[in-house]
């Protein structure tokens, strides 16, 4: 899955598998996730609630709970994050890779003022004195469009949109090279949504940082991202340049998502999200797919490059597509289910 190396590669996720061991079974939240992000690139991760995109975001910073098992490789600037010690991870978090978690209303310590929570980042990571840190915190607040006189107010005194801005300030305080934004516009009014997106885009582009924008809102993804991946039931089902994916969606799920937008017809995607403990056999989307083929319930499709830099995981799409390129080898010893039968693909 290598792309042109005109700009340097910042993050490379290779065959990432994240599962949770629970009393009800093994929840496979992420399966075989692979993608790359270059410097300065804004990468979109789209999917419905519960498809595993938030888990993926957290996994990149190893912020998952104790019963999570992560396998695979996450290579950031040449180092495999999964092999780092906890101490090394701490110097990565916040400084190199920042994350905006979902729902700002629960992401702040309720008994500390907002300015304090930004300032402590500077005091901790850069050893600044209290006064200097406070000054920087005020600057950050102004940068995201909040009057710095509000720095001594508490999180509960802010509206949703305002608090989201504070989240941005916190995440970008140390100017990380990579920002992971998990649903930054969820639950916001359309005008506020735009404002937030503008702020994020402005600040990220200014520093030439990269960003992973996790969202279920296609609209948001369209506006901001350079490349997009569509996730379903823990897997990436389509990935490519945003313009291409939007204009020519090759996976039935992507197609359905696009057509659920008001402008495109507001068609609903039928059916329910699948269980991650026992997902449907073969293609995970097949029970809800209107393009279902006979093999779809038996064979689990691979992520294949159909057109230049546009990968799809779908049998129907393969059949109807004219040029199907071979999948590039990543980790040769990862067996793909069902590939023996079909024969063409590597095993």
């Amino acid at each position, binding site marked *: 899955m290598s792309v042109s190396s005109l700009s340097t590669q910042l993050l490379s996720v290779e065959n990432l598998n994240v599962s*949770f061991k629970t009393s009800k079974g093994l929840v496979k939240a992420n399966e075989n996730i692979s993608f790359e992000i270059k410097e300065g690139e804004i990468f979109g991760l789209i999917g419905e609630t519960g498809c*595993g995109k938030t888990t993926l975001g957290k996994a990149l910073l190893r912020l*998952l709970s*104790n*019963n999570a098992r992560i396998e695979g490789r996450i290579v950031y600037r040449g180092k495999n994050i999964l092999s780092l010690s906890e101490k090394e991870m701490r110097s990565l978090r916040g400084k190199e890779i920042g994350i905006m978690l979902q729902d700002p209303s629960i992401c702040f310590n309720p008994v500390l003022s907002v300015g304090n929570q930004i300032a402590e980042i500077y005091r901790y990571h850069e050893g600044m004195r209290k006064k200097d840190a406070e000054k920087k915190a005020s600057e950050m607040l102004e940068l995201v469009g909040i009057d710095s006189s509000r720095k001594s107010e508490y999180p509960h005194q802010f509206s949703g949109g305002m608090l989201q801005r504070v989240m941005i300030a916190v995440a970008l305080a140390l100017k990380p090279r990579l920002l992971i934004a998990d649903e930054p516009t969820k639950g916001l009014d359309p005008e506020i949504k735009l404002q937030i997106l503008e702020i994020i885009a402005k600040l990220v582009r200014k520093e030439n940082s990269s960003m992973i924008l996790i969202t279920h809102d296609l609209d948001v993804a369209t506006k901001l991202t350079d490349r997009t991946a569509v996730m379903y039931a823990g897997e990436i089902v389509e990935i490519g340049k945003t313009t291409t994916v939007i204009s020519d969606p090759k996976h039935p799920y992507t197609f359905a998502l696009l057509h659920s937008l008001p402008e495109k017809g507001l068609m609903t995607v039928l059916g329910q*999200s699948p*269980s991650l403990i026992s997902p449907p056999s073969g293609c995970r989307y097949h029970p809800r797919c209107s393009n279902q083929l006979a093999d779809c319930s038996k064979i689990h499709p691979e992520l294949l490059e159909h057109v230049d830099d546009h990968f799809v995981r779908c049998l129907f799409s393969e059949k109807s597509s004219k040029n199907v390129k071979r999948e590039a080898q990543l980790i040769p010893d990862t067996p793909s289910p069902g590939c023996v039968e079909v024969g063409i693909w590597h095993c």
Partner: protein
Amino acid sequence: MIENIKMAEKLSMNEKRLSLWEFGKNRLALFGILFIAILCFLALFAPYISPNDPFAQKLDERLLGPCHEYPLGTDEFGRCIFSRVIYGTRISLGIGILVVAATSIAGTSLGLLSGYKGGLFDEILMRGVDVMLAFPNIILALMIAGLLGAGVLSVVLSLSLTQWPVYARLVRGQVLSLKKRDFVEAARALRPSNIYIMRKHILPNCMEPVIVLGTLEIAHVIIFASALSFLGLGIQPPTPEWGSMLKSGIPYLRTYPHLCFIPGLMIMLTVFAFNFAADGLRASLGQSAKQEVLDR
């Protein structure tokens, strides 16, 4: 399906710890219930079980250690400690159950009325509860018991007067949150009799926490009653009550500590048992850990 991942994360950290704790607690709860059953048995069949008459004084056999005739030895008047402890079960359990029965019924009814009716009645009752709770438990009970004189009646009365407010508060809170729920509205539309609604719909939903509280309260009352007797204001000797037995044993603490140890141990084990039983009840009714502590 978001439940899958979110649930997975929640179950994480404490799953191992919780399951061990749950298992331990369930075991303890069983022990608690078993012990309570034994106590009830002792109380009911005291005359048949105890080897000696708890009141019989044998001054030439004072202060004996455990022996064949007296399994736990004798006290300063030559009375069999084991028998006294068994008879003491009657008193402690009796008072505990009596007081809790009375206070829970009274407190629950008042809380129910207060929460449901609201308005002035509610305000006045709640102020009353606040006032009663403004006195530290023992102080009020001491005062009342002191004024009425020692004896079973004053113990029961003073404890009842101090303990009913907890139920009223608890039930009122439950009622208030239940009142807002839809099924109450629906019931009201179907059959507007208030009493019926209170009885059929609201009350059953309040019962769970009340039952847990009641179990805890039995433990409270038992300690309370023995404390009063210990101070000399409750049950008086020669009636065998664990608290007053403790008090009588103090002068002999250096030389014959078992006079104090044994009754105190009984109180502790009994309270233990009720606490564990209450925890078990709570676990099977699904309350949170913090609530569990605050209820005490």
